[in-house]
């Protein structure tokens, strides 16, 4: 779909600056997501290229993950002064993004993308095997393969073998890897963005610090090396946690730096199972008053829940790795969770939204 400059100049729906504030007074300290009512959200991503030189283009991730049990992407609209704006799809993983190109004479390139989606809490009862949807051979191959930064041999395989030695079921292997990450890694507040997910470097260096893109990629790598299909889902926190966990939700309507990736592991008796060991370490580091011990009840509740469930206050963009952005001069991106752009000066720094410039806002939509 190619949109002409005239058409894209039509203003989309105005983005309300207010966001419904949940009743935090009713918040509980027990973290136990269960599937319930669906919630509708809208995000607005606005790019204003601060120093446009030469031909400018941008790639804005769109919600393109889909699971009938907990995530439904909706309509995307955009307003821009670009020459072209086109939804494109990564052929390998199906990740969608808006590819925008401006003319060389555009002095103030901008694009504003509004995305709608519905989601809800998710929980898999791991005590009750069920006949979930099977994984095709092609999917099994895709989700057990190495990526550029997630090798499945060498130190990753050696570590996975050590962790899962003696485990007799896939569920036990998956849980052991989860517990190992919770117990052996840490959230490093100095890591830029969400980290890059260089799994081999993490393990070989022995410095197991990082953020979600590191620690949950480590889960994916170890699971794949143990023969379990697994995948990162790259996304964005869009609302506070209704369980009162300050560290596990968006703090305000501005979610420019609220990117968060989670992981899933496929177990044949349960289907895709949600896991998020990185968020357990986030609770330990950040949940007030901070630096909580692993024995703290809030940590224990999150640790118990985040193997098998997670809260629906989060947008799932895609599960893609090593994406070649069409038309780009720069290299493949490790994952597509941040807006990307290029000018004559090269690829802009997606981890520096104030220099880029981009801003992301989110609100819950109540019909």
């Amino acid at each position, binding site marked *: 779909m190619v949109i002409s400059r005239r058409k894209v100049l039509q203003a989309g729906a105005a983005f309300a600056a207010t966001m419904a504030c949940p009743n935090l007074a009713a918040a509980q300290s027990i973290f136990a997501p269960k599937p319930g009512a669906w919630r509708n959200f809208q995000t607005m991503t606005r790019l204003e290229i601060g120093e446009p030189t030469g031909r400018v283009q941008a790639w804005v991730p769109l919600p393109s993950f889909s699971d009938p049990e907990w995530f439904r992407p909706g309509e995307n609209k955009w307003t821009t002064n670009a020459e072209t704006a086109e939804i494109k799809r990564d052929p390998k993983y199906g990740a969608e993004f808006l590819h925008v190109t401006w003319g060389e004479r555009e002095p103030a390139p901008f694009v504003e993308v509004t995305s709608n989606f519905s989601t809800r809490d998710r929980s898999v009862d791991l005590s009750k095997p069920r006949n979930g949807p099977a994984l095709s051979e092609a999917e099994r191959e895709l989700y057990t393969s190495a990526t550029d930064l997630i090798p499945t041999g060498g130190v990753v395989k050696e570590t996975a073998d050590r962790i899962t030695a003696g485990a007799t079921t896939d569920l036990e292997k998956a849980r052991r890897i989860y517990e190992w990450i919770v117990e052996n890694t840490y959230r490093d507040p100095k890591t830029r963005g969400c980290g*890059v997910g*260089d799994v081999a470097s993490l393990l070989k260096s022995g410095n197991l*610090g990082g953020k979600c893109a590191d620690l949950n990629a480590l889960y994916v790598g170890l699971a794949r090396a143990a023969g379990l299909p697994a995948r990162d889902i790259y996304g964005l926190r869009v609302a506070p946690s209704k369980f009162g966990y300050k560290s596990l939700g968006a703090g305000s309507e501005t979610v420019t730096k609220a990117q968060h990736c989670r992981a899933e592991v496929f177990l044949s008796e349960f289907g895709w199972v949600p896991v998020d060991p990185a968020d357990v370490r986030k609770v330990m580091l950040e949940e007030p008053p901070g630096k909580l011990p692993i024995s703290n009840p809030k940590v224990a509740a999150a640790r118990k829940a985040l193997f098998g469930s997670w809260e629906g206050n989060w947008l799932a963009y895609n599960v893609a790795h090593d994406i070649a952005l069409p038309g780009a001069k720069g290299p493949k991106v490790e994952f597509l969770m941040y807006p990307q752009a290029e000018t004559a000066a090269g690829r802009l720094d997606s981890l520096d939204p104030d220099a880029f410039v981009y801003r992301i806002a989110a609100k819950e939509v109540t019909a």
Partner: protein
Amino acid sequence: MPEASALERRLRAVSSEVAPALALADLHGSQRDLEQQAGKIVLVHFFATWCEPCRPELASLSKLIARNDDTLAVLAISVAEPPLRLQRFFEKTPVNFPVLLDADRAAMKAWGVSMLPATFVLDHKRAVRLHVEGDIDWLRPDVLARLQEIERENGGNTW
């Protein structure tokens, strides 16, 4: 920075493998290769700004060159990071050696680098003499002694 025993594990002697080719543009657009460093021991150093131990090691390498720029050279190779991010990083923390761009990780793969930081020390014949996985303090006396040893074997002056 590692203690002595850990240092020995990281500072691994290599039996004179010839270094792979290296030709990359630097942060300012100039082409760089190993031949331009003729007569010097060259440290080919792979790093990323997101890699926390890499940051103090860049400062350590800068101090090493400040003291020995007649006999040593560093080619620092940024792995898959946007040049604009690097420019801002090095404006705040300048270094005295060129920063080369390995945009698509081709050099990293060619050199068999599986973790960052990683450093290869090449002698005058461009043979790899040391392979360092992880960060080290390049000003430690035992590290300097290893570099001086390579310099002596190549008939150079000690420093």
